[in-house]
Structures are given as C-alpha cells and as structure tokens.
C-alpha cells in the first residue's frame, strides 16, 4: 500500500508502468471481457433455450435491426425486497468479518513487525502457509472440527466441560469463523507491509515530547497505518461480500449471502439474466468503496500545497 509520500524518479516509474501493463492485459482479458458479457446478459430476457437468454443484437433480413434491451431484471431486483435484504445481509456479514479480521490482524501484524528479522520471516511464513492447501479443503476441514460430533465437541465432552455438543456449524458463527480464518492473511499482509516501514524514531520522538506508549500508538502508529488498514479491509471485504464457498459449506439455511443467491439463480432457477443483474449490482456496490479509497489517497497526496 502506498502512503503517497515517496516520490520515485521518472526512470523507475517508466519501468514500473511497463511492468504493470502485463497484468492490465490479463485483467482486460479475464475480468473486463467476462464482465461485459455478464452486463450484456443482464439486459436480456430469460428464455428456455441454449443459451437461456435472448440476444442483445437483433438481426433481420436486412441485417442489423436494433438493440434489444430490457431493464426488467433490474426492476425486478429493486421491486423484490428479497434481494435488497440479501445485499444488506452480505454487506453486514462481510463488514463484521472484516472488522474481526482487523481486530485480530492488526495486533498480529504489529507483533510480527516487532520481532527480530529471523523470527519475523518464520512468522510471516506461518501466516501464508495455509495457502499451500486448497481453500475448499480448508473450509471443509472446519466441518470436521465444528461438527456436533467433531473434534472440538468430542474433546470438550471428553474432558467434561459440556454434556451436549455445542452447535457451532451451519450458522452465522461458522460463517464468521470461516471468513476470519480464510481472509486473515489478506488483512495481515498489507498491515505488515505498512507497519514495517514505520520509522521507529517517530515513536521515540513522541515519547520524547511527552507521549506515553499508548499515546504514541494512537497519535503516530495508527494514523500512519491507515493506508494499510484500508488496504487490508478492502482485500478482505470485497471477496467476502461475494463469498460463496464459506456460507455454502459452513452456513445454515438462514445464512443469506449474495453468493448463494447468485448460485441459485444461475443453476437452480436458470434465470441467467436476473443472475447477471445481481452480479452487476454487486460489482457496482463494491466499486464504490474502492473509488472512495482512491479518492482518499489522492486527497492525502494533495493535502499539502
């Protein structure tokens, strides 16, 4: 995460731009193009056919006759309160999950940064290590742990802490746990990168000027780590809003998340246009915080005359 204070020379900037082109091409091909297809489908009517939606361009005998678009899918989304509730529920779950990640991740990142270099490497490796196992498997593993007859319940019963198994699976708790577990590294990494660059002289300076340790933390460390906080939160929040696997595997029937609705619309109702509209609205919802973050960063850069 850039805090906007560094000002690299023109040369390295040009080099950087060239390097950045490649990922942009990638994104263009595998993100923007599919998104445009989805956008197109969201303006179509569902039909029982292969593919299950009407074409965007109408072709007559004389060739192209016009665009066939409908806003009915979007109208449907807004008229049916169901979708609104689910969007809000998804935002809420992702929001709480992100907050939990922040509350756990900040102290962890802070702790890791304060370790001697060797131990720091090991701890960082430990943070990334779960990525060596497939995400799906790891979420599945939680079923084995949280089950009524899972490891945790069996253990607690065997040592006599509880008589009846605790219900820890197929509810919101399990989903939060899944989100925190899966996305914590995405919170820690940007925070670590940010906190690592914190000039420790600044904390000494604060102490020298009369700040106690916690005051120096509040006055100096926290404000200077805001870019890291925002970066980490976006990295967690954005994928968590559209998360499908975790609520599908760990959530209960009443765990409403937009990812599951999307799945249902696509594969059960086979209403691709409505499903596409749902995703388009989701993307628009998520673009808002990203734009806000970018504006914040730009303003920070321009703050001083």
């Amino acid at each position: 995460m850039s805090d906007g204070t560094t000002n690299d020379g023109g040369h390295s900037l040009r080099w950087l731009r060239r390097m950045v082109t490649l990922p942009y091409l990638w994104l263009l091909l595998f993100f923007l193009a599919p998104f445009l297809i989805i956008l197109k489908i969201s303006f179509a009517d569902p039909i029982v056919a292969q593919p299950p939606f009407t074409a965007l361009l109408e072709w007559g005998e004389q060739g192209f006759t016009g665009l066939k678009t409908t806003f009915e899918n979007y109208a449907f989304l807004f008229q049916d309160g169901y979708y609104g509730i689910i969007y809000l529920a998804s935002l809420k779950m992702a929001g709480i999950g992100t907050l939990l990640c922040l509350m756990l991740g900040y102290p962890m990142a802070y702790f890791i940064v304060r370790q001697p270099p060797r131990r720091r490497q090991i701890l960082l490796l430990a943070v990334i290590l779960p990525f060596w196992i497939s995400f799906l498997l790891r979420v599945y593993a939680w079923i084995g742990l949280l089950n009524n007859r899972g490891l945790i319940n069996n253990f607690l019963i065997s040592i006599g802490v509880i008589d009846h198994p605790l219900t820890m699976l197929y509810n919101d708790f399990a989903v939060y746990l899944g989100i925190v577990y899966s996305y914590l590294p995405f919170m820690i990494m940007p925070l670590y990168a940010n906190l690592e660059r914190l000039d420790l002289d600044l904390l000494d300076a604060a102490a020298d000027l009369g700040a106690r340790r916690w005051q120096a933390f509040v006055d100096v460390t926290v404000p200077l780590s805001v870019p890291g906080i925002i970066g980490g939160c976006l990295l967690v929040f954005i994928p968590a809003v559209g998360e499908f696997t975790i609520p599908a595997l760990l959530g209960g029937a009443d765990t409403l998340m937009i990812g599951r609705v999307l799945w249902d619309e696509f594969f059960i109702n086979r209403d691709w246009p409505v499903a596409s509209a749902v995703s388009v609205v989701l993307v628009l919802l998520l673009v808002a915080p990203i734009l806000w973050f970018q504006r914040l960063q730009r303003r920070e850069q321009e703050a001083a005359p």
Partner: protein
Amino acid sequence: MTDTTSTPLVQIREVTKRFGNVTAVDRVSLDFLRNELFAILGSSGCGKTTLLRLLAGFEQPTSGRILIDGVDATDVPPYDRPVNLMFQSYALFPHMTVAENVAYGLRKERVPAARIRERVAEMLAMVKLEPLAARKPDKLSGGEKQRVALARALVKRPKLLLLDEPLAALDKKLRQHTQFEIANLQYQLGTTFVVVTHDQGEAMTLASRIAVMADGRIAQVGTPGQVYEFPANRYVAGFVGNINLFEGRVTGVDGGRMSLRCEALGVELAVLSDEAIAPGSAACVAVRPEKITLSRQAPETKDRNLVKGTVWDLAYFGDQSLYRVRLKNGTELQVSAQNLRRSAKLTVEWDDEVYLSWEIASTILLLS
C-alpha cells in the same frame, strides 16, 4: 553565557550501558553546566548515540546514575524528563502539519489550546517558519525540516536540549548558516544544548566545551582550544584536527624541559613538560601542521626543533598551502602554511629541500 559557579545542570555519574556483552558506554562521568553548548565528539560506534539515548531516557543505564538539575532522573521515562531531543532524522510526524508537529509536545502536556497557539506561533517565528505552518513535512526542504525539528524540541522549554548530528543532513553552505543559528538560539534561550557529532569542525565551532569519546569512554573533556592544543592522549590528538605523531624515547629531563630521541625523525626533540617521567621511558611526540615553519634557508634554532626534508607533495588552497615533506629516512610530515604574500609563485615548491622547524612550546608530549 556559561555559568560555571553553580552546580552542573546534568551530572552523569559512572554510567555504564551494556548490550549483551558489548559495552557501549563504559563508566562515563560527565557534567553539563547551565547555559552551555556542549559537544560530544566521537567516531561512529564510540557510544555517543547511546549516551544521548540514555540522557533522553530511551535507554536505562546498566549501572550509574544521571542527575538532572540535582534530581536523580536515571529511571524517569522519556515522557517525564525535562529533556528534549532533536533527532538526526528529524523524525517529524509526516501526517501532521508543521504547526501540529510543533504543538504536539504541548498537547501532551495538556496546555490550553489558546496557549498552545501562542507558543507555537512564537516558536515558528523564532525559527522563521511562520509562512510554512500549514505545510506537511514532505513539502519542506532539508533546512526547513531541521528548523521544524528544532522548534518542536524547544517548544516545551526543556532544561536540556539534545541535538543528534544536527547538521549532518544539510549541505555545506546551509550547515555554516545553521551552525550560527543554533549557537544563537542557545544564547537567546539560555538552555543547555548538548550536540552529538562525529564532525570535529562542527564540535569546535559550536561548542564551548567538548567531550571526546572513544570506545565508550570519555577520552578528554575541555574547551575546543584545550582539546586541540593540549590533547590528553594519542586518540584525541589524532581525532581532532591534523597532526604529526612520532614515537620516541626520553633521553633527558631537565626541569620543565625534556629531550626525546625520535627514530622516525632521526633527531633529538625538545619538549616542555612537567610530567614526572624517567629517562628511557617511551613517549609520543606530536606537532600540528600549522605550527611548523618551512624555509629553504636554515632557520634560527634557539628553542626550536628542526628537521630537514624534501617537498614531496603540495596542495594549494589559495589562503593556505598544505605540504607533505619527506625526510631522508622516508618519514612524512604534514605542514600547512598561510600564503601571506600575494604572489602567483610559491616560495616553496615541489622537490625543494626544506628545513622544518617549530617551537619547543608547540611540541606536544603524549604519554598515553
């Protein structure tokens, strides 16, 4: 001005600081007087920065005490000490404006807001930064940052201001200007300033007294003149200014006058000294380059030491010239001479045979 009559403001008593088995500061005792501009001079790794951090309270001494204004401050945390530090990196808070940076110390003291505004304006005026009050540090030049750091460290009116290499990050021209500014501020405020530096020129011009540090210890404390002209030992003699140093052996002692045989020079040198030293013992003789007179004719030798050599190299600086003279046996001496006469041609040139002579009184005897 320096007040030598009352008790010292800071008394460092037998302070030792160890990190693992490295002794960074070794039994240092040092006093800072009221209203003085003191310099701690030493090369990197000599322990001067550790001593500074001990004074600021960032480190606790392994043993020894530090008294500030008569009160034992050894265990007082940095935020409660009447001491402020100007960091070498300046350590300005990048997310705060110049004014907020300067105000920070007062805000932590819970000074009323109106009073803070007043004090900050006063400090900014003092360092001539009022027009930049609303800027963030990354929009300041090096010299401006330095002045913000100075204002921020002085705003709480500390009894002791520590300055860690205050001029190191500035370019040469600004450095000279800032040197005067710092000395001027110290004079105006009457606060005790302690400057830590590796630059002997900086220490000499700024400070009224200097402590030379080496290997965690104080090698010498004195005025710039004392340290330069009367170095206590070989280390100080070599560290402060240029010097010609030769090992010798005492051959005769006659009252306050002593003669030493110097193999490197191939002559017997005379030195003034009250040291009780037995003939036959080893000692070191030193002479500063500017104390040596070069001449092509044999000079007067009364009360002067004399050697003969050939000019091997010379550097012309306009106001002065620096000569390197080689003796027959290969020993080299540095001589600097003021170019007092206006002439495009130097009186002494390359490969000239020259006499080097200096007053006996200018000869330094070093026993350690």
